[in-house]
């Protein structure tokens, strides 16, 4: 197959995701949730799920709907499932958050809000996994990056299953009375599968292809990414399967987490080695802003590995786990996603606006849809704010964390505006902006 079509709703996923991110950031600036509240308390759960489902999962789903077909050179299995999935995820998350707010005493609401919200979220993720899973299944044998995505899809199933069970426990459902330890012991598995498997492993896989494409780096060697995939998949299998067995046998998770952590570290080292190799062998020496900013997110991932190992070695992992998770969610994942959205949104917008008139009239370049110099300051503020916020959490400075988050929020608003300007073709100079036959795309939906 040559070429794939635009996913009509990918831009809608991105827009919804950015709204959730901004909401979460504003709440954190206002002092809602951790570190002012308990790390496992209902208020923190509101923030965590806004960031992990509303922001990161939504944006990853939208990106995978557009990018998995590119990876495997096949069309998406069912484009028509993408909008119902978006609706289910949005509604499910809203109800789940209402359930957490009720649990925290902020609103009056029935206990069933949590399992109903979780049920709708599971239904949404089932549609996402079935759609992407069938696309991958029909494209076997899979190229390397797609194999990372396949593991990521398996992990979101585990994450969602645990989330569903937690919602039953928290709602006091009779059926959950048989799992008294689940909430304490199951959370690490839920977090490893979600943040580690679904979000990080998927992002790692996709970044192999994106970095190679953007930098014109050779990536045809079948060995590229193999060790990172094997070690990462082993880490996730040990963490998830071993974790479930340990839960079942009530033997404790320490050994499982140690083995999984060692394999994860090996995977990250192999990934770091591969990425450095791509940078070293790239043909395109002049890097664009998205690739330069991806380097900062990769530096955050390296910092996660070093900080995590140091906290474990010094026996201070537990009191600082919040700082580590924040660095994973913002410095690494959010940074990487924002850097890549800064390329993906203008690219999809270009295809919509200028693809149909190509060959008939001169067209601008994708680079003409953005103003890198203006956006650079927002990225610098974002990463500086994220790293400062992590530091504030490490030294237990709650007010300092909120100030740093205010900087992150300002940067997110700035980058959001940059993406809207790209969508509006606002930075494209005349006379190339709207040649005959071209039209400004809709802000929230793609014409495909």
């Amino acid at each position, binding site marked *: *197959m*040559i*070429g*794939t*079509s*635009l996913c009509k709703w990918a831009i809608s996923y991105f827009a919804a995701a950015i709204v959730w991110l901004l909401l979460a950031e504003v709440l954190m600036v206002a002092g809602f949730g951790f570190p002012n509240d308990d790390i496992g308390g209902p208020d923190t759960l509101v923030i965590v799920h806004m960031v992990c489902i509303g922001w990161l999962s939504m944006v990853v789903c939208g990106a995978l709907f*557009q990018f998995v*077909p*590119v*990876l*495997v*050179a*096949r069309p998406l299995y069912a484009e028509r499932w993408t909008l119902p999935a978006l609706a289910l995820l949005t509604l499910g998350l809203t109800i789940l958050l209402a359930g957490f707010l009720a649990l925290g005493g902020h609103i009056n609401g029935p206990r069933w809000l949590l399992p109903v919200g979780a049920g709708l979220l599971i239904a949404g993720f089932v549609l996402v996994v079935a759609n992407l899973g069938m696309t991958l299944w029909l494209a076997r044998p899979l190229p390397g990056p797609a194999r990372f995505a396949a593991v990521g899809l398996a992990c979101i199933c585990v994450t969602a299953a645990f989330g569903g069970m937690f919602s039953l426990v928290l709602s006091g459902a009779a059926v959950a009375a048989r799992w008294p330890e689940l909430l304490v012991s199951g959370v690490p598995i839920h977090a490893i599968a979600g943040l580690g498997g679904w979000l990080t492993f998927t992002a790692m896989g996709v970044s192999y292809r994106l970095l190679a*494409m*953007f930098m*014109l780096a050779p990536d045809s060697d079948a060995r590229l990414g193999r060790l990172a995939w094997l070690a990462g998949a082993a880490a996730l299998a040990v963490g998830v399967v071993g974790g479930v067995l340990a839960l079942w046998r009530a033997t404790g998770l320490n050994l499982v987490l140690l083995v999984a952590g060692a394999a994860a570290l090996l995977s990250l080292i192999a990934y770091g080695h591969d990425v450095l190799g791509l940078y070293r*062998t*790239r*043909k*395109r*020496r*002049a890097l664009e802003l998205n690739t330069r900013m991806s380097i900062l997110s990769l530096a955050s991932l390296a910092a996660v590995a070093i900080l995590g190992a140091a906290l474990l070695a010094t026996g201070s992992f537990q009191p600082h786990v919040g700082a580590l998770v924040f660095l994973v969610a913002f410095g690494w994942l959010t940074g990487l996603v924002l850097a890549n959205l800064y390329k993906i949104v203008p*690219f*999809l917008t*270009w*295809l919509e606006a*200028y*693809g*149909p008139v*190509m*060959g*008939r*009239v*001169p*067209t601008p*370049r*994708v*680079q003409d849809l953005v103003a890198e110099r203006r956006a650079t300051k927002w990225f610098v503020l974002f990463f500086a704010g994220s790293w400062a916020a992590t530091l504030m959490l490490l030294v237990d400075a709650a007010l300092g964390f909120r100030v740093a988050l205010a900087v992150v929020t300002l940067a997110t608003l700035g980058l959001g505006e940059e993406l809207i300007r790209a969508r509006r073709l606002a930075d494209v100079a005349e006379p190339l902006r709207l040649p005959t036959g071209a039209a400004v795309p809709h802000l929230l939906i793609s014409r495909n």
Partner: protein
Amino acid sequence: MTANDDLVTQIRQALKVVIDPELGHNIVDLGFVYDVSVDDGVAHITMTATTRGCPAASFLKEGVANSACLVPGVESVDVTMTFDPPWQPWMISPGVKASLGFAEVN
């Protein structure tokens, strides 16, 4: 130079209006156009793209057909998209390589 050679040159020149949106340069200088020939007013163009599944690939193919059609003397256009051989960065013209910041060592 025969009339056909002249027409092929004009077609190659016309194809320069088609750009790879990501790399930001025209597809002729990027080395995407593998072959152009003309037979009884029918232009046969063999081309490639950076990635088989790229959503820009079909637009590039249409763009090539559109631009070649505008050349006087071309009655119809037949575009073949191939990935054999796959496109490689060394196919880029020296001038574009320089503007993309290609390192001499690579």
